């Protein structure tokens, strides 16, 4: 028995094929995971079977939802099924709730208008739905008063209110940290129950592992591999799937610790930083050795990026000291940003920007060898930041920073917007640079596995009690108190 079957779905943009024929079946009680990187066509596939492709894209194929048989080439006919047969969990739940309407009302209206309950019944159903999700108090709140996790649960209640049996979740863990990610996975599974259908589109390997069920791996619009999630993830047949799995920071081999000699590049002692009257952290102390990788990790909002900024002197500490090694010049500390596009002047060719830096530092001769070392094509220099991929741009940021011959590079979530394989490559390069150039790397990431497998020493930062830093660290970190 199955209630969502899609047969030979294709998506075209004019003459170009974006998604090659793909068929899938969702069976009750078993999630189906579509796994792929950016540009793999996984979201297009979801949009094609929902009838929500952007204008200009053409889909073909047959979609059977419950008792309905539809053609993907006629997206208008899907509209009547939304909410009643299939419901969609949006990528960004916070942005998907009407900012000017109370959370409870956004659930109630679906009960009333879609399911056709009376106003009083709809209200009662909405509050019992929200109550089951532990959101009784949130019903009166506006979306901006909800946390990300609460918004996600309100969105789930609102999406399910119409009574649809099939749920499509598009990147449900985008922008969430590890703990929250597991909550979402468990919630999706319990919502599905034994009789519901669940289709999950994601690039998140940890989410896929937790969901189980069946899996389809996509790459550049083609199916690479299908099978039970557990089988695919433990014994992948295709090389691409294996590369994708190997790129998961959880499965990285740990980087060999760097040699530690000479005085530290920077020595942080008793550091406290406050933002908007709230203390982010206090009493933090550590030092970073030349050529070493020092990692800071923690959940979002714990102040780990601010700590890096304080080390660079971009944020004034409330207390404590940051001491640079005496011989380091004013420009000896450089930074890599989470969004590399925002780190370059938007309207200037990358080559011009790099030349400006090279002329100022007198390092023009290094540009070409560094391009080669970082695996970058010189033709990229003709382009503007918006026209280069995130991975290439992040490597160009590294190149730009190296033209200053920095003593330390603060890498602030440098790969959180990159696909797993690209992420592994960029992080690998940072490790190499620490080794070959003797530059210290201060690596900040929400991904504990990534930091654990890359850094010589790790400082876990959190709002509550912080665990002791690893005792075997080559560099010594003192626990904040």
């Amino acid at each position: 028995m199955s209630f969502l079957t899609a047969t030979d779905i294709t998506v075209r943009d004019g003459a170009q094929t974006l998604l090659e024929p793909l068929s899938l079946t969702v069976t009750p009680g078993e999630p189906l995971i579509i796994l792929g990187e950016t540009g793999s066509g996984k979201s297009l596939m979801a949009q094609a079977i929902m009838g929500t492709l952007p204008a200009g894209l053409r889909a073909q194929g047959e979609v059977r939802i419950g008792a309905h048989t539809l053609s993907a080439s006629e997206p208008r006919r899907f509209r009547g099924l939304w909410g009643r047969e299939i419901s969609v969990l949006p990528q960004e739940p916070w942005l998907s709730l009407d900012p000017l309407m109370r959370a409870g009302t956004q659930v109630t209206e679906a009960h009333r208008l879609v399911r056709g309950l009376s106003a009083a019944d709809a209200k009662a159903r909405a509050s019992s739905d929200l109550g089951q999700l532990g959101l009784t108090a949130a019903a009166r709140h506006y979306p901006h008063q909800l946390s990300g996790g609460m918004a996600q649960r309100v969105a789930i209640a609102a999406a399910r209110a119409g009574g649809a049996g099939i749920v499509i979740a598009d990147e449900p863990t985008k922008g969430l940290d590890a703990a929250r990610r597991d909550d979402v996975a468990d919630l999706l599974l319990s919502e599905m129950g034994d009789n519901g259908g669940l289709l999950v589109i994601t690039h998140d390997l940890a989410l896929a592992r937790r969901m189980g069920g069946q899996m389809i791996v996509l790459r550049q619009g083609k199916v690479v591999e299908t099978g039970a999630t557990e089988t695919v993830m433990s014994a992948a047949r295709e090389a691409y799937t294996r590369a994708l799995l190997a790129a998961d920071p959880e499965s990285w081999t740990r980087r060999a610790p760097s040699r530690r000699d000479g005085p530290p590049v920077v020595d942080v002692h008793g550091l406290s930083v406050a933002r908007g009257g709230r203390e982010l952290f206090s009493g933090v102390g550590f030092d970073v050795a030349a050529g070493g990788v020092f990692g800071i990790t923690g959940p979002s909002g714990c102040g780990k990026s601010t700590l890096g900024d304080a080390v660079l002197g971009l944020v004034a500490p409330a207390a404590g000291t940051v001491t640079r090694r005496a011989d380091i010049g004013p420009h000896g500390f450089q930074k890599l940003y989470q969004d590399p596009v925002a780190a370059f002047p938007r309207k200037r060719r990358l080559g011009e920007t790099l030349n400006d830096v090279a002329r100022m530092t007198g390092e023009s001769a290094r540009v070409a060898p560094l391009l080669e070392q970082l695996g970058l094509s010189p033709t990229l220099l003709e382009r503007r930041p918006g026209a280069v991929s995130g991975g290439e741009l992040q490597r160009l940021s590294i190149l730009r920073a190296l033209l200053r011959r920095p003593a330390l590079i603060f890498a602030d979530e440098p790969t959180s917007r990159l696909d797993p394989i690209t992420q592994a490559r960029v992080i690998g390069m940072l490790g190499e640079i620490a080794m070959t150039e003797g530059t210290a790397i201060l690596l900040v990431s929400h991904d504990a596995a990534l930091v654990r497998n890359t850094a010589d020493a790790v400082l876990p930062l959190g709002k509550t009690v912080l665990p002791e830093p690893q005792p075997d660290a080559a560099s010594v970190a003192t626990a904040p108190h």
Partner: protein
Amino acid sequence: MSTAELYTQPARLPVARSLGASLVILVAAVALIGPLLIPGDPLAQSLLKALSGPEATAPLGYDHLGRSVFHRLCAALMLSPLIALAAVLTAGAAGLILGTLSAAMGGWVDTVLTTLADALLALPGLLLVLIVLAMVPGTATGFWIGLSLVLWVEFYRLTRAATREVLVSPSVEAARLLGFRAPYIFRTHVWPEIAPLMLTTAAFGIATAIMAIAALGFVHVGMRAPTPELGLMMVELLPYWREAPLALLSPAIATFALLLGLTLLAGSRET
């Protein structure tokens, strides 16, 4: 309207912009070259020819005092656009400098300038222009000063908002870390972002200024007769609409063409 609430949308077709530019160039060409090809005096009267139709030396006929409408129109098309241009250049320079200063320095400089700009926003521009006109001898000077006082606010607010946004962006932080100084940051980061806004605002500003001069002329409180000015010409010719429709239509059409050209050139930004 507030710059933070810019209703950005895909830039209107460049076709519209180039159409706008061609309209402006066309009007300017007529005003500049016209009197060279057909010499004539915009002030010379010959009452015998009052309200008579076009002829070779007066292609648009004569007005109620027997003056060549064509030559009055060409003179009018030189007058208010030049005042408008002068006012926009003054206001643009002031707004650019003060806006950059406000964004870069913050603190009390920013507070004082922003409070002043906010207060000026509450005053109808025409009112300010009228008050200045009443104080300053010389109507053209009065318009220049008055319009500059009105127009700088928009330049200031745009510059300040855009500059603030750029200055807190990672790209500027990175540039500072690398050791670049303020002039480089302004040239490569700030200016490329605000230049298109400046152009748009300037085109709107010129249109606003031309409209203001013509509107006040039309209600007899702007330029005084016998100065050839667009609004004044129209109000003078209105009573003779039946006898000499062309005489009234030509300044009306020229004004519309010029303003439409400037609006199209400015692109789609609502203020």
